[in-house]
């Protein structure tokens, strides 16, 4: 017996399907890539955008929140902007297209478009699971980005900024970056709206750390007030690799940033820090799925959220410890400063532990500004507004300072205080 289910597509879903039809012939890629794109779009069409009934999207009902998809419009040519950290090497992707490829000494760099054209990128166009809407959207539409290899034993002196700039429209980018054994580097993945008008952005970074690599990866999301940002990083850590991952959300109307991380080598260490600055009527979701898959690995996760206006935020932190991943040490915390009665923040830590000799903990707090702190500062003559701003800043500055590198700390504190000045 055949059972026919027909699902009515929403306006946004219809727009995505139509956009795919309109662009299909001109999207870069060989036959294998085109086949993957078509399948992913088909899956997207069949499953629809995820709703709150899908557990991993429970707090971000994408079908309901993404009402419309902006037209792919042509915008005036964009120019790269100065890097957030002075002295960085900049690789710009402008309106979804990689800008002329600069050569950076000791790095192997290719435009992702070339990897699509020769078909070598086909294997990466996947959904990670049946609810991976970001994998489907990005895989269907991705046009460009940069593929980078940091050779083994290479140490980059200056950060590399992957600078994704855009105006209105649809932008789908990809950044596969692999770090060779014992290499050291700092990468800043920066997404930034430079003109008004709504954009739909999807971006996936595939990050592989080979044995002993030490990487600081910063995601700096500064999208516009009407933008949808669907970000995902797929990370694999080799033996004794150290990844310091720092996520700053300071923009966007509807944001989902997924961190899919697998710790695959003994002795590996993950340090995740997140700062979510939420204002207006925005919705921001950071979702971590972390697998400690082998014995003797460590991770710590600290997320700090500041909620103004009618903003809502979500942190989902799933840590899975595999059956033989003994001696795993994982600590997760999520602290929220809720500065409004109209905003909200949902924190959902999840630990799935299948090994018996591990140390795993999690905690979540929600608070307003400490009145004792406020009184103390005011009693020394600091006016209330200024005192509040300093205390909010202090709440997030604490984890920014952990980065230690002075230039990085200064740059991020600059981004944070500029945001706070505008919103507080």
């Amino acid at each position, binding site marked *: 017996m055949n059972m026919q289910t027909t699902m009515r597509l929403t306006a946004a879903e219809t727009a995505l399907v139509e956009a795919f039809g309109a662009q299909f012939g001109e999207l870069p890629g060989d036959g294998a890539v085109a086949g993957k794109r078509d399948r992913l779009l088909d899956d997207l069409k069949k499953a629809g955008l995820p709703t709150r009934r899908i557990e991993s999207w429970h707090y971000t009902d994408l079908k309901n929140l993404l009402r419309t998809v902006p037209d792919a419009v042509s915008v005036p040519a964009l120019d790269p902007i100065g890097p957030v950290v002075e002295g960085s090497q900049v690789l710009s992707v402008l309106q979804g297209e990689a800008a002329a490829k600069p050569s950076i000494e000791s790095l192997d760099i290719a435009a992702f478009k070339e990897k699509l054209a020769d078909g070598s990128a086909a294997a990466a166009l996947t959904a990670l699971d049946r609810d991976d809407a970001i994998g489907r959207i990005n895989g269907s539409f991705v046009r460009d980005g940069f593929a980078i290899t940091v050779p083994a034993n290479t140490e980059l002196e200056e950060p590399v900024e992957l600078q994704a700039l855009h105006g209105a429209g649809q932008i789908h980018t990809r950044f596969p970056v692999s770090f060779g054994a014992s290499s050291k580097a700092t990468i800043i993945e920066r997404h930034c709206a430079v003109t008004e008008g709504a954009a739909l952005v999807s971006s996936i970074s595939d990050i592989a750390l080979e044995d002993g690599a030490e990487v600081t990866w910063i995601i700096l999301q500064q999208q516009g007030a009407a933008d949808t940002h669907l970000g995902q990083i797929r990370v694999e850590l080799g033996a004794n690799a150290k990844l310091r991952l720092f996520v700053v959300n300071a923009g966007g109307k509807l944001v989902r940033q997924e961190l899919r991380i697998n710790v695959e080598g003994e002795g590996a260490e993950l340090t995740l820090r997140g700062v979510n600055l939420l204002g207006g009527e925005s919705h921001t979701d950071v979702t971590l799925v972390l697998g400690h898959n082998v014995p003797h690995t460590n991770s710590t996760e600290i997320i700090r959220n500041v909620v103004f206006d009618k903003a809502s935020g979500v942190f989902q932190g799933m840590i899975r410890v595999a059956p033989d991943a003994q001696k795993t040490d994982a600590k997760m915390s999520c602290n929220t400063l809720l500065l409004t009665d109209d905003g909200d923040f949902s924190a959902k830590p999840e630990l799935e532990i299948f090994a018996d000799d591990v140390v795993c903990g999690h905690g979540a707090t929600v608070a307003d500004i400490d009145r004792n702190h406020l009184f*103390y500062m005011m009693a020394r003559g600091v006016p209330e507004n200024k005192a509040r701003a300093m205390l909010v800043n202090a709440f997030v500055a604490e984890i920014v300072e952990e980065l230690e590198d002075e230039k990085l700390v200064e740059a991020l504190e600059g981004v944070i205080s500029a945001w706070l000045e505008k919103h507080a």
Partner: protein
Amino acid sequence: MLEIKNLHARIAEDGTEIIRGLNLTVKPGEIAAIMGPNGSGKSTLSYILSGREDYEVTEGDILYNGESILELDPAERAAKGIFLAFQYPVEIPGVATMQFLKVAMNEQRKARGEAELTTPDFMRRVKDAAEKLKIDQAMLRRPLNVGFSGGEKKRAEILQMALLEPKLCVLDETDSGLDIDALKIVADGVNALKSPDRATIVITHYQRLLDYIVPDTVHVLYKGRIIRSGDKALALELEENGYADIIGEAA
């Protein structure tokens, strides 16, 4: 300089009356000690003077240089020259001590219509004041009061007082938790600020501090009222006989 008239005040949250008809006058140049047993309302008085919103004044007035300050918030009072040295200075992680000092000094100057300090001028002032109080530069590089010992916190309070140059200083149990050497340093810091146009209110439980900061007047606070006033001999009398006699007389 300060005139407190028939002041009644209560805890805003539960309405408990703490100050019940308090009268006190402090003149410019005067050092006034307020003593009293635990629970008499000493700390509450210091909070009410600095404008903490957890307390409500239900009757009476506080005049500072002839003007009521009841409607001013703590920052406005500070800018007018009222300074409270906290019994328990709070630790504020993430706020750098130097940044805080600079903001506090400049915000007060701004409120008074004065020019902001230049960075070199600011640095010089802090360095001079810190040296006098034997405050290590390393301490100033830490977040505000974070990880400071009890003695360091009290010295940091006096440092702020020296930098902000208030006109009315209120020291709330500044002697608590100090060993004798730290007590001397703090007392020297307070005495160095003595001037004909500055008044100081020293709130203390014990006479000990008054050996080093010699008061012009001594007032005994009990159940929210001043029940006895005198000169420094009164403090010595209290040290000798305790509060019981005076409280007995007043009852």
